[in-house]
């Protein structure tokens, strides 16, 4: 996983006097699922558009496999935009063939793969129907198939889960995991943190056009792992506070949360606790990605204020 498959280095993009992306750098390792996270308006879509050269960066560079992305290199990427549409009056098979062709497939090959995909999606009997006759869910499947019909090494999905029902969401998640297993790289943007937490191994958290957190999900989590324990015990607050290393005791619902001092050996505290009070349960406190996200964004805003 070491080498950077997609690398974004010091990218700037401004529209008029409004900076949409500022000094953004991150690298998506080969074979990773990379989450581009952030609130609405953070610059995620602008970043993706710059990768696809729909918008060009004012400064900085974007490389795929070490090569600066040009118009031809885009054929190695499969891109599913957030605003996705199809020609409504085109026939389903023709449409898929067309999208395969503009993504670089030769016509015959595109036709062959389009047929296979329709079979896989269970839409073979609709091949001659117009796109507008398909249900919305079926159209989404066709769109997804067209994104990967040319077997790209990198797939970029902009808010792929918006508008999907739970079944389609599940299928797309499986599809993303499957792509990683086959050695492909997936970059997707979302503002729904539990999804990112479930799928990503690397993230870049953006706010107001800047990256405020970047790296492997584990590392980001570890960086935010608070020194705190949740305990379930009949012992009194005073008894708990007397344990060495504990700086504060809070009640959260029917449990107690013990805040520990900076750099305290958590395992040592647990041993000391077990020696002094009866313990029913002990759990280290781990922030969810959502907590990290909210905290970071709030912190970012506070820093600017």
């Amino acid at each position: 996983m070491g080498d950077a498959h997609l690398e974004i280095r010091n990218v700037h993009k401004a529209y008029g006097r409004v900076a949409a992306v500022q000094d953004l750098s991150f690298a998506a390792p080969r074979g990773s699922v990379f989450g581009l996270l952030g609130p609405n308006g953070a610059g995620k879509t602008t970043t993706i558009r710059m990768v696809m050269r729909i918008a060009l960066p004012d400064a900085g560079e974007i490389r795929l496999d070490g090569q600066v992305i040009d118009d031809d290199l885009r054929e190695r990427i499969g891109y599913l935009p957030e605003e996705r549409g199809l020609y409504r009056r085109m026939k389903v098979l023709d449409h898929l063939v067309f999208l395969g062709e503009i993504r670089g497939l030769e016509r015959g090959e595109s036709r062959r793969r389009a047929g296979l995909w329709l079979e896989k999606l269970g839409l073979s009997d609709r091949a001659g129907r117009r796109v507008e006759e398909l249900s919305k869910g079926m159209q989404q499947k066709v769109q997804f198939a067209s994104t990967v019909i040319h077997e790209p090494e990198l797939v970029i999905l902009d808010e792929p889960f918006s508008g999907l029902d739970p079944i389609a969401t599940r299928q797309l998640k499986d599809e993303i995991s499957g792509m990683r297993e086959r050695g492909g790289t997936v970059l997707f943007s979302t503002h729904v943190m539990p999804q990112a937490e479930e799928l990503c191994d690397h993230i870049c958290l953006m706010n107001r056009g800047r990256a405020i957190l970047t790296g492997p999900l584990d590392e980001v989590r570890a960086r935010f792992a608070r020194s705190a324990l949740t305990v379930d015990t009949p012992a009194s607050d005073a008894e708990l506070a007397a344990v060495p290393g504990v700086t504060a005791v809070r009640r959260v619902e029917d449990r107690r949360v013990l805040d520990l001092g900076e750099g305290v050996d958590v395992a040592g505290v647990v041993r000391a606790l077990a020696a002094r009070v009866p313990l029913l349960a002990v759990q280290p406190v781990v922030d969810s990605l959502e907590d990290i996200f909210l905290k970071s964004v709030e912190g970012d805003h506070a820093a600017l204020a």
Partner: protein
Amino acid sequence: MLRWRKVLPVLRREYLSRVQTKAFWISTISVPVLMIGATLLPTWVMSRTGGEYQIAVVTADPGLAQDLARVIAERTSRHAVAGRLQVTVRQVTPEGEPSAQRQRLKRLVVGKELAGVIWLPEVGVAKGEVEYLTSNVTAFRLIGSLESAVANVLLRRQLSRAGVPADRLDELARRVELHPVRIADDLGETADAAFEKSFALSYILSLTVYMTVLFYGYYVLRGVLEEKSSRIVEIIVANLRPMELMVGKIFGVGAVGLTQYAIWVVLAVNTGAIGALAGAAMPSATLVPPHLLVFFIVFFILGYFQFAALYAAVGSAFNSEEEAQQTQSLVALVMVFAIVLMMPVMSSPDSTLSVVVSLIPFFAPVLFFTRMTVQTPPTWQIVLCLVLLVGRKAGSPPTRGGSRLQAQGSSSPAQPGSRLQAQGSSSPAHPYQGRFTSREGGGALSLEP
């Protein structure tokens, strides 16, 4: 730099998705039918405006009425039965007070018992005018034949009064018709270049060029807007350069137009046969000289490229047909000018005005072609016209037009949206960029505290 492997799928899609529709075939068949219909209808209606008319002649000359009836009958006998005018002429002798008699006759006209009254109390016309009292002064055909008949009869009367023997009257009062004979550059004569037919032909062909250039230009506009409203454009521009998309689209739609033209030309060449089958008086195929058919197609192509590029530029600046309507109608207005100028150009194709306006690239597809249908312009003008048209086309690729239009939109700095568009168009000229940049920019703007 165009990558044809990218352009071709777009071109093919644009072409097939249009040719495979019923609408294409309906319009291919109905346009010539309507065109020919619209041109022939007035003539046809005219030919059916025959009928029986009762006319009274107020005259003291007893032979006048018979003479009139005879002359009218002679003249109209050449027409088909259906279109024959049958005029019965009744003599009314002037009697009593003229104004009272006139009043009585007027009552008969209003009561539809008479179609009209020729008021000719004294034989001999000092003023060269004869009064015709009628309730319908726009019955051109009836009035026209009455006029020539009255003139002829009066001429006979005057000749005979001047001492010309009766047997020479027919010869001296013979009616003369002017037959136009068209002379080509090689001095060849076309004896039966019937004016109406040649006129109708010019009109049909020029109007077809006009309509198709507008229609197909508008198709391009619609296509661009459809891609935006269906949101597929994002996928397209992630894979194609804007120029590749535009070239594919314009050539694809143009190919649809050419297909239609090919069908029409084949139909035109075989009109004679088709007309014979239908037993109708279709304008004969031999009327359309082959070189005209060639220029028919050439001017469509050149006109189409110009207007398609303009329409593509309009399409790139707007998001929906409603928004584009105003600007689009400005483009159409250019063509309407050409149509307004068509009549003057047709009647005097050599005048300075005709030469100048027909060389203006926007008008040339219609007006220069109109001139060609009437008479072949000097070769240098044909060459100049084509050079101007091709030069214009090469000089303004559609995307450049698009970015230029966006840049113009940015001249009002008060609107942040349009300022963003200007920014967008300074990076690779992009027909769709205006929209994207302004949307994105809008999102970024809303984040400002």
